[in-house]
Structures are given as structure tokens and as C-alpha cells.
């Protein structure tokens, strides 16, 4: 499989996960099951995740490995801020706080430190292009995404971006899911909230029988209550997944906080979904968005990692056909760009 194919799978998976998860954002897993059973069909467009990822990719295409935080801050000042004339749709606290900091004349890393959402998943949601750009080199992907992250995030928000970029860089080589998760952990300190959450989530998946059931079906065994479907995927019913969904929430979901975009949590849940899905794009993404919370970002991260591993054809055609050029509703500067074109630009020269 070529890097171009994997780049396309990655960004298409990101866009599909973003769009699939959008209506499930901030819903409880129980409410998601009540409304959709398993949420498997894209209902509308994507959100800020896809548009910011396209923007990040455009920075990489322009600056390559020489990208610096100053370049990123300059791009915010020249390409994002002048177009913010009214409400900034889809933007999270970290983007808005960063823009206020830049308007005050601050420079990175203070721009990512002075607002209080430094640990948001705003970098993790757009980190995948950095992994695409550094296939097989998680450390370099993490170094590069940190240049971007220092503008808008701090602490665990930067680490969330590093983990996702590292995971995608590993998945770009076709590494097995366990190795991909190990790559994510390899680029962040073990003594961090993000690492602790990833390890907790991984342990929950390892201890659950959802994965064993899937592997059993893939091996040809018939497991009662679960149906094998063509292509090696496994239709696991919502009820079967309930214990692992609850255990994942118990393990990493922040309890006494009303916002759901906490990077350690979102990244850990996305990687857990990827392990539950065994790398398969559809299983990974549908499980990821079934977790609720920041479902569009969880779907985007999970879809990007799985898509990098499986390539363009790993993303279900019915999803791919729903992904058109972005509208620029969150970031006008990227209006009209299609993730497949962006993927081709990123892959050029790899």
C-alpha cells in the first residue's frame, strides 16, 4: 500500500469519524443507543475537526519539517483572525482563547498558556496530518505537531496531539493496533495524565470480551449472539458492548466537569475504540462515536488512525461518498478543500 493511499485513508477516516460523531456529541452512550442503536450512517457534515486538520496539513505542505510555532502563529494572524468577524462557529475554548491571546500581541508558547483550555483536544483533533507526514517516525511527528500545539495548547493538550500524531505515524507503516498504541505512548511521558488514561483504557479493552469475541469470529468460530459479516467485520450489538463502554467511562471520563473536550480522555477513548475495532475503520469509528462525550473528535481521531492503517479502501464507500469539500463554516480559509486533495498534497514527496 502506498503512503498516498494511507494518507487518503487517514484524512477520509478523520472526516468520516467527525461527521458520524457530530450528532452524538455530548450525548450519553445510553441516549445514543436509544436514538440510533448503533450509529452507523453519516447524517450531516463534519465539524471543526476536519477543517482544522486541513488547515494543519496546509501548514505542513508549506513549511515541511522546518515548521515552527512562529509560522503557525503567523498563519493564525494572517489567515484565521482577519476572517473572524462574528461568531466563530465550531471553535472550542482553546481556539478562541488563543485568538484572544494573539490579538493581545502575545507569542507562543504564552498564547497556549494564558487561556484555560490548554488541555483541550483541539490539537489532538487536528494532529493526524503530522503523522501522515512522518510515516514510521512517531518522534518526528510528535515534534512537529508540538510546534502547532504550542500556539494553542499547553501541557496535556500538547501531549494529546503528540500521542495522536505518533499513533498515525506508526499506522502509516501498517503496524498492528497494539504497536500503534505503543507508538502513541512512546512519544509522551509515562508520568502524564494522557499516558495514564491511555494505559487505563487499553487495560479495559484487554480485559473485555468484546475483542476476544471479535477475534473468535474472525477465526471462524461461531459465537452466540454475534454475527459475522462480509469482509471480516463483526457486528457486535450495543448490548454486548455495554460493559466495555461503561468500564471505559469509569476508567477515564472526567466526572465533575461539564465540558467533554478534555484531551487525555478523548485520546484514550479514541485509542480504545481503535483497539476494540482491531484497526478496522468501520468498527473502530462506530464504536468510538458510541462512547458519546466529544464523539465527533473521538470519531475523527479513531477514524484517522484506523484509516492510515487500512488505506483509502478501508473507509466504507457509503461514508466516503458523503464526504465532500468542506464548507469553511468553522475556518473560512479552508472552504472548498477536499480531504482527498489535501491527503495527496501531504503524501507528495513521501
Amino acid at each position, binding site marked *: 500500500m502506498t503512503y498516498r493511499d494511507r494518507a487518503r485513508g487517514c484524512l477520509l477516516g478523520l472526516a468520516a469519524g467527525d461527521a458520524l460523531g457530530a450528532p452524538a456529541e455530548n450525548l450519553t452512550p445510553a441516549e445514543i443507543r436509544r436514538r440510533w442503536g448503533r450509529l452507523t450512517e453519516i447524517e450531516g457534515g463534519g465539524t471543526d475537526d476536519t477543517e482544522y486538520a486541513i488547515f494543519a496539513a496546509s501548514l505542513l505542505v508549506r513549511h515541511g519539517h522546518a515548521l515552527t510555532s512562529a509560522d503557525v502563529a503567523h498563519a493564525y494572524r494572517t489567515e484565521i483572525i482577519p476572517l473572524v468577524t462574528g461568531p466563530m462557529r465550531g471553535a472550542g475554548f482553546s481556539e478562541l482563547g488563543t485568538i484572544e491571546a494573539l490579538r493581545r500581541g502575545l507569542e507562543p508558547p504564552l498564547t497556549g498558556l*494564558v487561556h484555560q483550555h490548554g488541555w483541550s483536544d483541539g490539537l489532538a483533533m487536528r494532529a493526524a496530518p503530522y503523522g501522515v507526514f512522518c510515516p514510521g517516525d512517531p518522534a518526528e511527528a510528535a515534534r512537529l505537531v508540538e510546534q502547532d500545539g504550542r500556539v494553542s495548547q499547553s501541557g496535556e493538550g500538547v501531549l494529546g496531539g503528540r500521542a495522536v500524531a505518533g499513533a498515525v505515524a506508526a499506522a502509516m507503516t501498517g503496524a498492528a493496533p497494539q504497536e500503534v498504541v505503543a507508538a502513541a505512548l512512546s512519544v509522551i511521558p509515562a508520568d502524564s495524565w494522557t499516558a495514564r488514561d491511555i494505559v487505563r483504557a487499553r487495560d479495559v479493552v484487554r480485559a473485555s470480551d468484546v475483542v476476544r469475541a471479535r477475534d473468535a469470529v474472525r477465526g471462524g468460530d461461531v459465537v452466540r449472539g454475534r454475527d459475522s459479516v462480509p469482509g471480516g467485520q463483526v457486528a457486535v450489538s450495543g448490548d454486548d458492548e455495554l460493559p466495555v463502554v461503561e468500564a471505559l467511562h469509569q476508567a477515564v471520563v472526567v466526572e465533575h466537569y461539564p465540558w467533554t473536550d478534555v484531551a487525555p480522555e478523548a485520546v484514550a477513548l479514541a485509542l480504545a475504540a481503535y483497539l476494540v475495532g482491531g484497526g478496522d475503520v468501520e468498527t473502530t469509528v462506530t464504536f468510538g462515536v458510541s462512547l458519546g462525550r466529544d464523539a465527533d473528535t473521538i470519531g475523527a481521531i479513531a477514524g484517522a488512525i484506523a484509516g492510515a492503517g487500512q488505506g483509502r479502501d478501508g473507509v466504507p464507500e457509503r461514508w466516503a461518498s458523503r464526504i465532500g469539500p468542506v464548507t469553511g463554516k468553522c475556518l473560512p480559509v479552508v472552504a472548498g478543500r477536499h480531504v482527498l486533495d489535501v491527503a495527496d498534497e501531504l503524501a507528495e514527496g513521501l
Partner: protein
Amino acid sequence: MSGDRIAGAFVGLAVGDAAGWPAARHRSVLHAPWSRRLLRELDTFAEEHRVTTLPVPFALNQPVAPLAVGPSDDAEWLAWTVLTIDRPRAEAFRDLTGREDIRARISVATALGNLAKGVEPPASGHDNPHHFDDAAAVRAVAFGALGRDPTEDAQVTNANDGLLGALAMAAAVAEAVATGSAAAAAGAALAVLPPDTAIGHNARLALDVARKAGDPFAAVPALDAALLDHVYSYGVGAAQTVPVALALAEVAGGSLSAAVPAAACLAALADSAPALTGALTGACGGLDAIPEGWITSARTLAGCCLPEMAGKDVIELMEELA
């Protein structure tokens, strides 16, 4: 004099806590839940009817005492800190886990959840969405007044700017108790706040704009413009409240009566900036410099966050400690 200044720090915090508008909301939790539900419905009514008559906490069929001017969350958590200060901090907090009758900031609630799950300090304060808030900075007033290190306590509930806020408050209060000088207190705080952190950057910026404004009330719009981005939904970040307290205390020359009202005018920070400002200026001027009427109103705790604090007298607590 230093005994008077120690008492000034504690009572000053209670006075500032009482002066901010959120105090009445905290204290209204002593009313029946339906009372607060009605308040939320009146808020919706104002929105739906487009009337600018906004509801305030009210006492329909409820005792009116909780809505009188008085201390709330910060004074109670400071009192709890005083009462438990000789115990290992994680152990003192662990006693609170599982209790459903207490109220605390998001950082503290998360830390208690972490402790219950076996996540120990410093991770309990670090793996925490509000690690940056000023819960530990409030408690640090007790450590600073008594000349003790707040680190072990702060790390249970906070990290990064939240921890630095505690170190800065302890240093500033210790200096104010020792010398009575607000400028020296601000200097002591700056010495523990690295300039490349948000709180360190903001502390220097706040002092700069407040000095240019010349007096505390004049500094209010400048502090708002320089420090508050009005993006986030909560206003208890140590990187905002501690710098505002330092700046207002200094530019007021340590006068509580000048500094605390200005802090209360920064509506977004009014939950804790007045309390921290009151602690610093109370320590500078001592108990004798605090207006008698404010002492009377602020010295008795309501028990709105920690029920066992209901009726406790802040000055008596201090005397027992001494």
C-alpha cells in the same frame, strides 16, 4: 502585631469572600433545592420575556439569614485547612471522599474522586480539568500566615498555575504578616512565579497596569482588558485571580477597604479575587484595620460548603490555633 496580622489575613479573606456577588449564591444552598430551582426558572423567564429585571437569590418560605452579607465557600475551606493543618494533606482530604453533603470547586471535587480511585498526589491534582484554579491558593493563606510551605496541600488538588498560585499566595501572605507591606508581599509572590508561566506573566502585567492606573478602582477596566479573555465559562483561574489580588493590594497600599471593592467589581473573578485580595490586605493592615461592621458580618461561617463549619467563628478558630 504579627498576631493581629495573622488574624487579619483570615478575617480579611472572609470579608472579601462575603463581598463578592457569588457569596449569596453559595449561601443560598442552605435553602431548600426548590428555592434555587425557582431562581433558575426566573432566569429563564427573564430570557423569554426579554425583561432586564434579573432575579437575585431570594427566600420565599425560607429563612432570610443565609442571604445576609456573609462568608461562603472560601472562608469555609480556609477554616477546614486551619483545623486540619497538622495532618498529612492527602489523608485530610481522603476523609472527605465519598461525602455527599459537601460542596467544593471542580478541582477539589475531581481530586476527591481521584483519591477515591487510588490516584494519589501529585497526580490527584494534576490529572484534573481545573488543576489551574485557585482552590489551593485560598488554602495557602493559612500556610502563608503560619509561615508554612503550602506545596503538599496544593498538590492534592492542583498543579501548574494552580500550584504556583498557592506558592505565590503563601509567600505574599507570609511577607505581609512579617512586614505589613503590600509592595513587599507582591515582590515575594513574583519571586516564586516564573515569568514564562501564565500566572507569572499575568502577575507582572497586572502590577504594571494597576500601577499605571494609579488606584484600585481606576485599575478595574485595565485589569479586565489585560487579564480576562472572557472566553471560558469559569472565573476561578489562579492565573487571573492571584495576579489581580496582588496588583490591587499593592496599588491600594495594603488598604482592604480600597482593594476589596475593586476586586468585587471584576464580576467574572468575583467569587475568589475579592477573598484573596482581602487576605493579602487583611494581613498588611491587621485585624484592627478591617471595618468593624465587616468583621461582624464575615466572622461567622454559614456551613454552605462544609456543614460542620456552620456557626464557627473565624476569630475564635484563630485564637485556638494560636
